[in-house]
């Protein structure tokens, strides 16, 4: 005799029941944890912006150490003086929630021919002004993004890179200090003031990155596609900020 669990009606019933049970369980967990997860993401954004402009707890040559999550709100309001949103022909407005702008959505908007909103965070630390811009691009497996702090000549003052799912030990190393710190002091413009970006190069024969005006940093071995993604997102996204800096100088 056929077992009950082999019957078609039982299989269907079981499948339906399982989908309902597992589906509602996951939906319940996801929606009850959502506020907490979003809060964590918000804090992380503030930590990243502060990190790019040099507000962090790094020690020596060690690993990345952000400002503690409990202190981040205070430090953020202390160091970040202004948050701007730039649209179209330098239409600049202040917006204290500009750091929450979703760069991915803005990039999709720009592709659809709409105007893209560009957030820019102006920070001050030890009498120096930092202009921090968020950028986003594609790595090997998934999204990569960064916060780049520049001075008024578009010379990089600090950067924080992050990724969704790059390969551990290879592409994932873009968020390690040995890679990110190389960007400090690099120019985004060439010597004639034309935007050139910074290329992650496998052949710049400058592994210790002593030459700062070559628009190149040393690549990570085994992370070619991720490195190319970093170069590409710097070129495409930071270029959009150049008019702002030109305007800054003429005024």
């Amino acid at each position, binding site marked *: 005799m056929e077992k009950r*669990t*082999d019957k078609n009606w*039982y*299989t269907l019933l*079981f*499948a339906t029941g*399982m989908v309902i049970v*597992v589906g509602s*369980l*996951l939906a319940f*967990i*996801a929606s009850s*944890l959502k506020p*907490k*997860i979003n809060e*964590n993401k918000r*804090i*992380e954004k503030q930590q990243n912006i502060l990190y790019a402009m040099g507000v962090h707890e790094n020690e020596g040559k060690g*690993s990345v150490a952000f400002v503690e999550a409990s202190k981040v709100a205070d430090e953020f309001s202390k160091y970040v003086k202004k948050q701007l949103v730039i649209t179209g022909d330098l239409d600049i407005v202040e917006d204290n929630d500009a750091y929450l702008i979703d760069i991915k959505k803005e990039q999709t908007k720009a592709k659809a021919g709409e105007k893209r909103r560009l957030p820019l965070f102006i920070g001050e630390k030890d009498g120096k002004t930092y202009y921090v811009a968020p950028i986003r691009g594609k790595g090997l*497996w998934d999204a990569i993004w960064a916060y780049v702090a520049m001075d008024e000549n578009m010379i990089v003052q600090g950067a924080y890179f992050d*990724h*969704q*799912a*790059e*390969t*551990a*030990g*290879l592409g*994932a190393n873009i968020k390690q200090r040995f890679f990110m710190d190389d960007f400090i002091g690099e120019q985004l413009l060439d010597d004639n003031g034309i935007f050139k970006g910074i290329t992650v190069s496998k052949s710049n024969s400058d*592994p*210790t990155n002593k030459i700062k005006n070559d628009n190149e940093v040393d690549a990570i*071995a*085994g992370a070619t596609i991720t490195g190319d993604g970093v170069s590409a997102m710097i070129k495409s996204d930071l270029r959009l900020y150049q008019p702002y800096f030109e305007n800054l100088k003429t005024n």
Partner: protein
Amino acid sequence: MGLLSSKDSKLISDPLSDDNPITIQVLGICSALAITAELKASIVMAISVIFVMGAGNVVISLIRNIIPSKIRIIVQLTVVAALVIIVDQVLKAYSYSLSKELGAFIGLIITNCIIMGRFEAFALANGAWRSFLDGIGNALGYGLILIIVGFFRELLGSGTLLGFPVLGDPIEKTGLYSIGYENNGFMLLAPMALIVVGLIIWVQRYRNTDLIED
């Protein structure tokens, strides 16, 4: 062992040596290639798999008599996927920095064939407690190999262990590098993980000739 009967304790100890999931059962090779370029990633993956494997085996074992055999693979997949999503969400909410570290690995657990393999081979035919022990045992055996492979790949490929430069600084030429030693970039690439696993298999069969199949 006082806590476990000798039959039960074999469920834990066998996968660590003579019935290792990677080197003997040849399961879970894909993740062993993907994530062992760093020791830390290996350890983290091992811990995550121990959790999912233990819990998954128990769940499957508890519902083993009511699973329709025609769709049992789909049921198993659903159980793993649900567990993995729960782990992912809870980590994101309560330990955000850790979840950033784990990132891609959590999703990778779903595709780990050890988990499906043990569901099929053990949990579907055994009680919850024994399935739990089997799950933990196999995950430990898997983790052990992962950590061995990760140790050699990070040491020889990057000259570091857990991120600490144990061999000196390759750029400033200190430590071992001052006498002409170079990191082997090959070790960071996935194929070298296969070769390291192959060497482990060789050593294991050399030490215990019973394992050699003709």
